[in-house]
């Protein structure tokens, strides 16, 4: 391929992928009185929008809610997924394949099908408008992928290492902590990032379950800055930036593992 064509291609891809991100940040920092949606390079720069959304906008509260929900999901999800992954990777038992197929199939279920019954259920159990209710739901969403990914990492740990631990007199629990856990730690990092992002980005359940705006997560809290007739785009974009940056940081951390996973999963053998 010609160098010029490659250069054009690279430029095109960079512009297409980064333009929305660029526009989001620039609009958030736009200090002009009227944040026109045409501005690609404002005359005046400011962090006023950030101060506003966190202070008066109540976004600090939403960030704290989302952080709490996401961390709880990560911790509980990591533990449950690791135990399940050990079961399917290390033991041969009846219905093992059925369990794996089920894990795959439930990924297909659209959230619209789940949100109706779970809303009714949560209402009955007085779990609406609580952060715990969201954590439980997000746990279920993140588990199938986490189990599926971790089982590969667990399977990659040589059984001989485990057996050596038993020969040294270690109990199963001791072996789990001292041998297995350190070796699957990279897998846990990848699945933790995934679970965090599931909880951080989720919109429908947060929208449906949360009535009191004190309990909003970031994805739902963002809607506050949309007026009936006018939208405070500076505030919307400042809040959007605050939501997006943590996800991007995590993506960069997990990039290697995510792409390695893609390679291993996509390529036969």
């Amino acid at each position, binding site marked *: 391929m010609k160098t010029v064509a490659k250069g054009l291609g690279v430029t095109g891809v960079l512009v297409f992928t980064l333009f929305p991100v660029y526009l989001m940040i620039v609009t958030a920092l736009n200090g002009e009185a009227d944040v026109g949606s045409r501005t690609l390079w404002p005359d005046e720069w400011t962090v006023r929008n950030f101060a506003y959304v966190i202070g008066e906008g109540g976004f600090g509260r939403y960030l704290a809610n989302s952080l709490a929900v996401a961390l709880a999901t990560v911790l509980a999800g990591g533990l449950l997924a690791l135990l399940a992954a050990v079961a399917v990777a290390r033991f041969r038992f009846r219905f093992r394949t059925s369990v794996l197929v089920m894990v795959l199939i439930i990924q*297909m279920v659209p959230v619209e*099908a789940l949100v*109706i019954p779970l809303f009714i259920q949560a209402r009955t159990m007085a779990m609406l408008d609580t952060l715990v209710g969201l954590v439980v739901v997000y746990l279920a969403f993140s588990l199938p992928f986490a189990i599926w990914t971790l089982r590969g990492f667990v*399977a990659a740990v040589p*059984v001989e290492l485990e057996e050596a631990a038993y020969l040294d007199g270690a109990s199963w629990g001791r072996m789990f902590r001292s041998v297995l856990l350190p070796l699957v730690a990279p897998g846990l990092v990848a699945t933790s990032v995934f679970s965090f992002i599931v909880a951080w980005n989720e919109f429908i359940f947060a929208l449906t379950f949360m009535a009191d705006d004190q309990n909003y997560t970031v994805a739902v809290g963002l809607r506050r800055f949309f007026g009936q007739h006018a939208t405070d785009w500076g505030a919307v974009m400042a809040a959007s930036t605050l939501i997006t940056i943590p996800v991007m940081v995590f993506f960069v951390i997990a990039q290697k593992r995510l792409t390695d996973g893609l390679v291993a999963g996509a390529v036969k053998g």
Partner: protein
Amino acid sequence: MTLAERTPLATEPPPPARRSRRGGAGARPWLLLAPALLVMGGLLLYPLLRVLVLSLQDFGLRELVSGRTHWVGFDNYAELLGNTDLWETVLPNTVVFAVVAVAFTVVFGTLVALLLARLTPVVRGLVTTAIMVAWAMPAVTGTYVWVFVFTPGDGIAVQALDALGLVDAATANPFSGRMSFYAVAALNVVHHGFPFVALTVLAGLLTIPRELTEAAIMDGAGAWRRFWSLTFPMLRPVFAVVTVLSTIWDFKVFTQIYLMPGGDGVNRNVLTLGTWSYVESFAQNRYGLGAAIAVLLTALLLVITVAYLRLLFREREL
């Protein structure tokens, strides 16, 4: 669930489980599995059965408050299938949008992968990071930015199209028309979805031995010919998997449609199965009908998923 929607199930690192020498170890695997199975069974499988049951009931605000059940058999389905909106608006919106979005996602993703494969490692790393950034953008914020770009009147895109003489910025509202609404939605979904395709296909491209490509060049095959005679046949399974997964994701796109102006049910011309189900349930309090719509969407996805599972089983031992 941005990443959930865009992260492949096929990201399975190394080999399938080896036979443990302590194989068939009685209750232990079930004890380990129990907590995860309880959560997934209670929050994914049980609600799925529940939605099936709900679709056979007239479940409204009264039933929600009293907890009583009111069976109506297949009335909800009769109403759903007898509604001309389903056939003229909702189903075409859902299916045509998914097909077009998948086509663009896969074709553009493949082109980007072919480009990436020809770059030097440094430039490739740079572009890959940019692609990751697009992938990492949450659906909620991504959608708001695209809505901002297409704001009627002074949105950058509307102004640009006006400058090209394609629309009149004073009157153009990209969100009012069905076609233009979905054009913006497709742009958003492709931006968010192509990174997965590009990186997966790139991974596949890097496994094709150099010698094969060089031999094809020696034989005088052009780029087009090389792709269809060499690359595509070798990567057929990769293309199959990214296409099926993209199809599943694009059929159930919700947040991106719902958050666009009018997408939350205000503009009935742009309803999809997903947003229609949600609006019937939570705006109209007609949970039974909403459930029937959700069942229809789930059935569609089940068919696609079965195709996906068959592929997975064919490609490698589970």
